[in-house]
């Protein structure tokens, strides 16, 4: 009984997998036959275009750039989306064609690596300098400076007590 069930389950799974593969193939074939860019909305295109920069219009993201060249790039994205390409594939295509500069931030390799390393290092350096300075605030004359914070608050405390005593 249990064997039977197990076998049929496995068969069922195989059947499903074959169906799935067939449907994917059929889908793929249908797309390959007739990719229809009109089914891709502007929002889908812009979602990708937002992350790209054309080499001519400096610092203007592709989704808002008004030039003819950028409009053509957007149509290219639409076409590629309709061919079933993923966002990563489309971005990789533009990088291969025009270089890293089409990306909003350069990939962290080569010299560009410095972009991601220097600012945090500089800030950490600043923190370290402040930390060292903070150490010296306490260090030089422990007999004078160390009790100070305590003294300040206890002074206040004493003053309040004296005030209360005087009131009596």
């Amino acid at each position, binding site marked *: 009984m249990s064997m039977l069930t197990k076998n049929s389950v496995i068969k069922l799974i195989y059947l499903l997998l074959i169906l799935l593969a067939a449907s994917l193939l059929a889908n793929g074939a249908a797309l390959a036959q007739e990719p229809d860019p009109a089914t891709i909305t502007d929002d889908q295109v812009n979602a990708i275009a937002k992350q790209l920069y054309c080499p001519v219009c400096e610092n203007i*993201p592709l989704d*808002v750039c008004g030039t003819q060249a950028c409009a053509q790039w957007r149509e290219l994205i639409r076409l590629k989306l309709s061919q079933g390409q993923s966002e990563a594939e489309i971005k990789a295509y533009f990088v291969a064609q025009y270089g890293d500069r089409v990306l909003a931030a350069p990939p962290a390799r*080569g010299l560009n690596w410095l972009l991601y390393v*220097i600012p945090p290092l500089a*800030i950490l350096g600043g923190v370290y300098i402040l930390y060292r300075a903070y150490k010296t605030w306490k260090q030089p004359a422990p007999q004078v*400076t160390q009790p100070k914070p305590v003294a*300040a608050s206890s002074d206040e405390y004493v003053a309040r007590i004296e005030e209360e005593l005087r009131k009596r």
Partner: protein
Amino acid sequence: MIANLGFGALVIALLVSIYGVGAAVYGARKGAPTWVDSARNAMLLTFPLLTLAAVCIITLLVNGQYEVEYVASVTSNSMPTYLKITALWGGQAGSLVFWTWLLSAFASAVTLRKWDRDREFLPWVIVVCLVTLIFFLVMIIFFENPFARIWQMPLGEAVKAMFPPAGAQLWVQEDGRGLNPLLRHPGMIIHPPMLYLGFVSFVIPYAFAIAALITRRTDDRWIRITRRWTLIAWLFLSLGLILGGRWAYDVLGWGGYWGWDPVEIAAFMPWLTGTAFLHSVMTQEKRGLLKHWNMVLIILTYALVIFGTFLTRSGVLSSVHAFAQSAIGPLFFVFIGLTFITSLSLLLSRWSELKTDAQMTSMFSREALFLLNNLLFMGILVVCFWGVIIPLISELFTGQKVTVGPPFYERATAPLFAGLLLLMGVAPLSAWKYSTAKTLGRSIWKPFVVSLAAPAVALIMGIRQPAALVGFWLCGIVGVVTLYEFWRGALARHRTRDESLPVALWRLAGRNRRRYGGYIIHLGVVLMALGIIGIEIFQTQTQDTIAQGEQITLGEYTLRYDSLAVFDHTDGRNVARAVVSVFKNGNLVGELHPRRDYYYESQQPMTIPGVRSTMDGDLYVLLVDWQPISTQRATFRIYHNPLVNWLWLGAFVFILGTLVAAWPDREPEAAVERSQQKQPAQAKA
């Protein structure tokens, strides 16, 4: 004729400036006041000379003298007169003249002050201002001459030169190419002068700092003299940045106000060091600390001011190679390098004299928190500087340009800005010198609890983004603490002096304008932060192509495309203007007219949004494209920018606060004296 007159004025201004530097140095070295007075007169003389040069340029611009290359490049017959006048700063050469004119005006104003107690500063302040002026004048006269004309050589080629080459004829054009249409906007007309005013006025505190170093006056006199100058410089720089943002929002048509463009960052960097400086000088005034650091900050600010002008003016941003070819690029580079190295070596040579006995005592004191504030501002500066520099380095060494866009800056600076907001909430409650974790904790816990209401309300309203909740909480704590400071001060006055609360508040702010002006600025920043959180985190957008009568929906808004008209305007542009009806939750709330202007002369399109603006948020509609009238279809892009109006409201409060802080005292000198007398007493207290 007028061109020659203007050019002559520039040349004489240069000669007078060179003489002034010589006379000032000689007078200071020999202790000869007559030479210093002569140098001062030279300084004062540059102002009418440069005014004459500027007036000459304006005359040429207004009269359409297109034989002058600059006039042809920035004006055209169809431009109205006010735009022709403002074209003075519409191009490279003219804006450099404008820069020198402003510098000369400010430097002249400062040399006219009463110098009784600080006479030894005078020659060196003159030297610094005039050296800066000389640098700009050399660039104008030899490389970027606004008076250069176009000549036609016997063989027909056109040559740009001040004086006629042999056998050449003056080439007079019928019309100019006109001002870049993007710059024909009220915001853009006042934005560059504001930035330049800010840039130029930072030269003054720098000049005093250098004078103090040279004359070995190691007290904080230079800071006290230039306090108001610094605030005014900062005010103009802030105004320039805000106007630039507003202009981008109204004209550039990408639904935002700040794109982390290198040109924007160029103006933002001196603002960062300037803001750090404004905070950190208080530490020197109150506690005599950080004397070296303040010098570093003002030297950096000056270097960044020149660097900012360099970035925007040398063409280095579009390509490192263009920069190498342009004449003024390398010159700028050398000047920045020389002044920076000279200033730093001067500082190093006076290092030991600037040492103080005063000591930082607590990590939670006001001065320590100011140090943290400075660290955060410097962090943002490093991020900005690297973001601008890396593409140049990359192009120089690998030949490949890279883009450093908004995502990088946003990710890198957002935590730093959040840290600054937190400090803004904490620092006003800490005391100079003595605050400890305990005392600070005691005064902060109540505002802290109250401020939690802000994220709580946001949560109830259905906001779940952690960044937004943190942001609202930070806004809450700054708002609560700042208002609490006003309340506490006013209440104390109300009780002790028997004044009504509003009167007490007014007089309190009047007594210490810098402090309460500063708090008003903090409130402005809170409001601006609300707007920034709104647009950065909650902006939504959609784009679609629809036929007339059809609709696009974005959130609770629906847009109906009613009609489109295409026509020529008399000022030389073709206008395509759409009419769309806006519905909110099904109710008609208004009509918008997004349009596309096309300028024939410069062949440049401009996308002007139709905006429905409320305190809740803006509906920002762009006409992206349209098909021939017969098909009646057009493409619209719609942004919903929640809370963005709070940004502009905050900007008003911000500027108001700066004005309060910088408002002149009735007796400035007496006030300084008073505060100096008070100083030892405070130190003892």
